[in-house]
């Protein structure tokens, strides 16, 4: 099977400053790719390039024929901290906005039904008329996941979905992603290495360049080799480096 997305020699960034240089990457059906790297290394930049929000300086991003076109079936969950929580909008309208590219092709009755069904499935039907400002972190994340999924995408892109989320919902979220992954490809940016090694299938280390790691087992040695300066620690655990230092 051909790659869903094929990135060839991509250089991209903001204004005239490149953040990523010479990136090559292929995403296939049912991939679950974890994207890791230091802050400012280009993780979000890579996502934005795939989503078409940034134009490549060099190189290209190709999509397979069935997901071609302006209205690509890509679901996107952005970093929640960039969203204005005081905006006067209800949960129902946020989720419905995930269908904006399909506008006109569906009657309003079936749109309503579709939104309600998904809200039910995600267990947040009862908060559908609440304003987004009234939600907890976990509810908020579920709402944005619904918005990303309502268009039945072939690829789901998530940018740090585990920020502001309690442990219980984090577990539910990744379990949900594991099931979704049976049908669609997932690209996940996360700071949490514990999550990455537990749920993803392959890893991309991004720090100006992209190094592809074709399994979810990654060692500190691999990371050093990829010039990817992050520590493999689970959030809340004591870092190895600190322990070593302490025992001296």
């Amino acid at each position, binding site marked *: 099977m051909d790659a869903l997305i094929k990135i060839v020699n991509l250089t991209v960034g903001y204004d005239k400053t490149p953040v990523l240089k010479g990136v090559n990457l292929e995403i296939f059906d049912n991939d679950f790719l974890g994207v890791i790297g230091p802050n400012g290394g280009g993780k979000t930049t890579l996502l934005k390039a795939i989503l078409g929000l940034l134009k490549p300086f060099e190189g290209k991003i190709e999509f397979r024929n069935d997901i071609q076109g302006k209205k690509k079936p890509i679901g996107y969950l952005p970093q929640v901290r960039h969203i204005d929580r005081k905006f006067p909008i209800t949960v129902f309208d946020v989720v419905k*906005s995930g269908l904006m*590219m399909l506008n006109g092709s569906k009657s309003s009755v079936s749109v309503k039904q579709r939104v309600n069904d998904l809200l039910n499935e995600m267990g947040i039907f009862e908060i559908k008329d609440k304003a987004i400002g009234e939600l907890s972190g976990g509810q908020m994340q579920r709402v944005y996941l619904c918005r990303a999924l309502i268009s039945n995408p072939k690829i789901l892109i998530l940018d740090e979905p585990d920020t502001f989320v309690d442990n219980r919902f984090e577990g539910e979220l990744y379990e949900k992603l594991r099931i979704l992954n049976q049908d669609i490809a997932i690209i996940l940016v996360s700071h949490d290495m514990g999550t990455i090694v537990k749920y993803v299938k392959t890893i991309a280390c991004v720090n100006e360049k992209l190094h592809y790691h074709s399994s979810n087992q990654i060692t500190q040695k691999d990371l050093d080799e990829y010039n990817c300066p992050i520590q493999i620690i689970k959030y809340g655990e004591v870092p190895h480096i600190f322990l070593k230092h302490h025992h001296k």
Partner: protein
Amino acid sequence: MSTVIELFKYDFFLKAFVAAVFASISCGIIGGYIVSRRIVFISGGITHASFGGIGLAFFLGFNPILGAVIFAIFSALGIQFFTKVAEIREDSSIAIWWSLGMALGIIFVFLTPGYTPNLMSYLFGNILTVSVLELWFMFALNVVIISFFAIFFNEILYIAFDEEFAKTAGLPVGFFNYLIMSIIALTVVLNIRVVGIILILSLLTVPQATANLFTNNFRKLLILSSVFAFAGAISGLFISYFLDIPSGAAIIFTLVLMFGILRLMKVFI
């Protein structure tokens, strides 16, 4: 009560009433958008910059509203240019255009020979002197705003809420932003005669704050804002007539008072 009804026999009062209806609808909707998107300050900049156009019109002897439209659109583009191309911080470029427009207005008015009696009505508004031609302009503006928001409600909401997400869905975000910015400029300018340049920001923000006490639904917020704007404008109009105080200021005072009372009621009830 009978004096209130008798007031409507007067031509000037009837026109003022119709102006209040039109101003409430346009400012209610556009203000709801402005507040939700947090672009109150940029709207203030455009409003004040339009004073330069009014001054220029006085100096050269053409319709002040036309001068205001030109300066409003020019400053909206100027702020965009300063921010995006010349890389000046957005709040600073707004302040530059804001004060430049006011300064040009004062210079032009100073240079205009003779007395300019209408100047105060542009700065502070006088709903009682609105002309029939101005009412037709306001009517046209209301038709444009209502049809635009009715047809493109979803697009407007989605872009206002999350511009980036709207871009990924292929919506023409840049086009919509420029279009709405032009409509904001027109709304501000065509409503200047009602409350004036200095006070129009309140018609764009206070009814919205009041409406926001009762709803977080964007559609309801726009409608409710218009309702509260209308309540404030009409009460202000009567207060202005019976107490013989300036109408613009009376309207603003009523709007804020209404907000204050309803806000307090929410605390205690």
